[in-house]
C-alpha cells in the first residue's frame, strides 16, 4: 500500500469536513477498498473511516413502514436485525461473503462501490429504495450509473438506505463459489401496485431492471409467467466463469426461482 493518513470521525458533519480535503476517500468496512489499496490500484492521501459514526449504525422501521438501515451498518447486523421486517433483504445480507467479511462490510460501502456482481444493488433497485446521503435523497432508479458508477458526488456519504417493504420478495443468487459474489442474482419484489425485478452479476452496465419480467409478473405472479420471455445475450458480462449466453439464461432461471420462493 502507498502511505496515507487515516481519520476516524464520530459525526457525519466531521466526516464530510474531513472528506473535503484533497485526495481524501471514505472507508466503509474496507472489504473491497483494502484489497484494492494493497494492489496499489488506489492512492488516497487520506482515508476517512465511517465505522465510528454512531448515527450511521443500525436498523429501524420508520413511521411509514419503511425499513431504514444506517449506511455504516455491517451485513451481519442487517442479516440479524432486518429478519423480522424484511426477511428477503436479511437473507441477502446473510449470504454476502463469509461471516468475518459480514462483520466488517457495510451496506453503504457496497452501494457506493456498485460492483456489477454485488448483492445489495439488486435489493435496492428491486425494492425501489431511497439512498439518503448527507446532502440529499436519491431514488434507486436514479442512483446506479453503470459498472462501479453511481450518482454520488465527490465526498458525498450514504448515511441511510430506506427500503419500502414489499408484500413478498426473494433474492436468488447463483454463487460464484470462489469470490462469493453473484455470477447472476435476481431480486424479485411484489408490491401492491406491481412487481419489480432487478438483476445483478449479469449486465455489463451493472445492476438493471428486467422490465419484461416485471410486466409479466405484475399480471400473474407465478414462475410460469416468465415462460415465453427470452433474455438477449447482448450487453451481458462474459468472463471465464460464464459466457454472455450463459448469463442471459441464468437471468431467467434465477428470476423464476425467486418468484417461486417469494410466492411459496
Amino acid at each position, binding site marked *: *500500500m*502507498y*502511505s*496515507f*493518513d*487515516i481519520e*476516524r470521525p464520530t459525526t457525519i458533519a466531521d466526516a464530510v469536513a474531513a472528506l473535503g480535503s484533497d485526495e481524501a476517500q471514505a*472507508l466503509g468496512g*474496507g*472489504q473491497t477498498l*483494502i*484489497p484494492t*489499496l*494493497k494492489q496499489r490500484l488506489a492512492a488516497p492521501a*487520506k*482515508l476517512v*473511516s465511517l*465505522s465510528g459514526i454512531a448515527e450511521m449504525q443500525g436498523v429501524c422501521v420508520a413511521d411509514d413502514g419503511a425499513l431504514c438501515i444506517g449506511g455504516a451498518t455491517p451485513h*451481519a447486523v442487517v442479516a440479524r436485525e432486518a429478519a423480522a421486517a424484511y426477511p428477503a433483504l436479511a437473507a441477502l445480507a446473510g449470504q454476502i*461473503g*463469509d*461471516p*468475518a*467479511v459480514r*462483520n*466488517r462490510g457495510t451496506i453503504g460501502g457496497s452501494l457506493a462501490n456498485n460492483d456489477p456482481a454485488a448483492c445489495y444493488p439488486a435489493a435496492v433497485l428491486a425494492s425501489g429504495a431511497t439512498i439518503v446521503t448527507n446532502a440529499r435523497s436519491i431514488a434507486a432508479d436514479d442512483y446506479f450509473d453503470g459498472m462501479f458508477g453511481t450518482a454520488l458526488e465527490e465526498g458525498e456519504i450514504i448515511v441511510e438506505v430506506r427500503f419500502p417493504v414489499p408484500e413478498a420478495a426473494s433474492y436468488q443468487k447463483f454463487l460464484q463459489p470462489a469470490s*462469493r459474489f453473484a455470477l447472476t442474482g435476481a431480486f424479485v419484489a411484489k408490491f401492491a401496485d406491481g412487481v419489480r425485478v432487478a438483476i445483478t452479476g449479469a449486465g455489463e452496465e451493472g445492476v438493471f431492471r428486467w422490465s419484461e419480467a416485471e410486466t409479466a409478473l405484475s399480471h400473474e405472479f407465478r414462475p410460469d409467467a416468465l415462460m415465453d420471455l427470452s433474455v438477449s445475450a447482448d450487453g451481458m458480462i462474459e468472463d471465464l466463469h460464464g459466457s454472455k449466453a450463459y448469463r442471459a439464461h441464468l437471468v431467467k432461471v434465477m428470476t423464476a426461482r425467486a418468484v417461486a420462493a417469494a410466492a411459496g
Partner: protein
Amino acid sequence: MPKVSMTVNGKAVSAEAEGRTLLSSYLREGLGLTGTHVGCDTSQCGACVVHVDGKAVKSCTMFAAEAEGAEVTTIEGMAAPDGTLNAIQQAFQDHHGLQCGFCTPGMVMSAAALLEENPTPTEAEVRHYLEGNICRCTGYHNIVKAILAASGQDVSGIAAE
C-alpha cells in the same frame, strides 16, 4: 507516527502505527503476537481471524487505527493463563483437527465465534460457517469434528478419515 491503543487479550496496549498499518501487522510486528497468521493477505483464507469487540474479523483486512479503543482477542488469549487449552483448542488436539497447523489460529477463532452464536451447530452449519477459512491441507473433516466435539456433541459416530 501516531500511537494506536486498544485492549488485546485483556491487557491495555499501545503501539505506533501508520495509517496503512493493518491490524494483523500491528498484532504481529507491533506487539509480537505472532499466533495470528497471515496466509493470503487478500481476505480469502481466514488464517488471520481475530475477534474485535466480540466479532470475528479478518485482521489483514482492517486497519489498526479502526480498532482504536476496541477489545481484541487473538489466539494467544484463548488458553487459560496457566496454559490450559480451552475446550475448542483441546478438541482440535484430541481429534487431530490440524495437519500443518497454519490455518489453525483462524479456525479456532472462527469456531469460537460460531459457538458463541450457535452453541450446538449441525455439521452442515459448521461447514457453512467456515466458508471463509481455508485449510490448504484440506483437513476439514477433523476440523469440523473437533468443533462439533467442542460444542459438547457426540462425535463417536463420525469416522476418523
